[in-house]
């Protein structure tokens, strides 16, 4: 039971020290809180962006129209070339005939108009519908297809998609940058908090070394102190994540701007995010105190 006894002692010392250095602890906790709020927002945003992108990806199709005079063997050739493109996930082929039938099903007007044309003079074209693997590369893929012989037009939501994807990935990169910077600042603050604790207990530590306390025993209270700071720091961000996201989701009714941008369901999403937030809080606290201990204790 010795490890438990030592752990109990470490926790007791850690709590004592958090209370004793209350103002500095509070500063660290607030810094962790602010960091974690931004981290949480960033994570939620990036998960949602990933979600949007996936949704768009699922819906996004390149439609390839072939020349009117394309023969069956031309179609085969085009199919072969499309198949050879890396980014192509799958494709379906619709012949003019199929397109015609589909349109006729859809509307009475089309039905009568289209019936007057036979296959030879039909203005309709054979089409391929191509799905891509990576949405970011959709425009280059579309261009490649356009160069294939007998392809007349290639269509996808060019401008809109490109802009949206670019905007999303830019937002993601910026938030990552901010998060990393904030985490570093927080670690720095924790290092200083723990440094103060260590210097307040320098004499005690020296005696601990002399009477044969193991390095782990000496370090443990400080590391636990860091973890406690991280844990306290994650309380407010978690509340904000849970209540905030539910409110946000309800306010927008699950969609942002258009049906295209669908938000992630709050449950169990917010709980997963909360776990991540606690994890990051504790980890940041631990890393901060561990590095302080290593640097200032030299045990």
């Amino acid at each position, binding site marked *: 039971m010795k490890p438990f006894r030592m752990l109990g002692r470490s926790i007791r010392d850690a709590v004592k020290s958090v209370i004793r250095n209350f103002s500095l602890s509070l500063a660290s906790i607030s810094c962790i809180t602010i960091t974690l709020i931004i981290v949480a927002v960033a994570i939620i945003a990036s998960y949602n962006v990933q979600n949007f992108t996936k949704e768009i990806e699922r819906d996004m199709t390149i439609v390839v129209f072939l020349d009117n005079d394309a023969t069956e063997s031309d179609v085969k050739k085009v199919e072969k070339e499309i198949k050879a493109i890396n980014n192509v996930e799958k494709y379906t082929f619709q012949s003019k005939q199929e397109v015609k039938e589909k349109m006729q099903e859809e509307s009475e007007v089309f039905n009568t108009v289209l019936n007057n044309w036979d296959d030879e003079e039909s203005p309709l074209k054979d089409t391929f519908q191509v799905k891509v693997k990576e949405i970011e590369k959709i425009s280059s893929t579309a261009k490649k297809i356009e160069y294939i012989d007998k392809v007349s037009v290639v269509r996808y939501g060019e401008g809109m998609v490109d802009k949206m994807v670019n905007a999303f990935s830019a937002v993601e990169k910026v938030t990552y940058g901010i998060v990393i910077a904030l985490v570093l600042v927080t670690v720095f603050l924790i290092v200083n908090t723990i440094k103060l604790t260590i210097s307040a207990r320098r004499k005690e530590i020296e005696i601990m070394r*002399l009477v044969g306390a193991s390095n782990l*025993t000496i370090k443990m209270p400080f590391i636990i102190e860091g973890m406690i700071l991280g844990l306290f720091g994650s309380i407010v961000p978690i509340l904000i994540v849970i209540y905030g996201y539910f409110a946000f989701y309800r306010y927008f009714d699950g969609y942002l701007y258009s049906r295209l941008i669908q938000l992630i369901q709050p449950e169990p999403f917010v709980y997963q995010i909360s776990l991540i937030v606690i994890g990051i809080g504790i980890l940041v606290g631990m890393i901060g105190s561990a590095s302080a201990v290593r640097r200032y204790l030299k045990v």
Partner: protein
Amino acid sequence: MDLIRLKNVEKKYKNGVTAIYDLNLAIEKGSFVFVIGGSGSGKSTLIKMLYREEKPTKGQVIVGGLDVAKLKNKKVYKLRRKLGIVFQDYRLLPKLTVYENVAFALECIGEKKDDIRIKVLKALEDVGLKNKVHEYPGNLSGGEQQRVAIARAIVNDPKLLLCDEPTGNLDPEKSMEIMRVLEDINKGRGTTIIMATHDKEIVNKMKKQVITLKDGHLVRFKQKGTYAE
């Protein structure tokens, strides 16, 4: 059997000062040894090497079967648990009572509470402070504080007790009190005691083994020695 053995030990500090030159020593279990010499003779360095505050630059220092020079930083605690250390400046924690100060040594190594109680009271009895367990160090005289420090050093029943000028801050009367306590520990518990001092009177009165160092060289190692100039 020898508890301590030093072979060709040399200690050179980073600033270029050599504190110990080619020292060879063997100290038997259960002995009481004074280390004497003037300032800069290397006696403190010798004591520090025995509890691995300092590492020898050359040679072997073996304490209770552990090669101190080869001991990794992480493993130092294994050596420290085998020995007790007493300093000139007591090094007690002012916010803890006498009892808590002594118990601290055992808490740090994870002893059970009941065992701690028994051992602490026994140690405090051995140094004659059983009636002051709840006092704070600040309310005690220098001699009493040093006895608390000795109690803390012996509470884990170490094989070896190292004392670095334990009477340096005390008047002759209190110093003799401390020496009596140390002698009782040496006889009663069979603890090997090594004590660095420059107090002639004590050395002459106690008639113990004496190691004399001068400028980092071993001058003399005598049974029942005195403080000879």
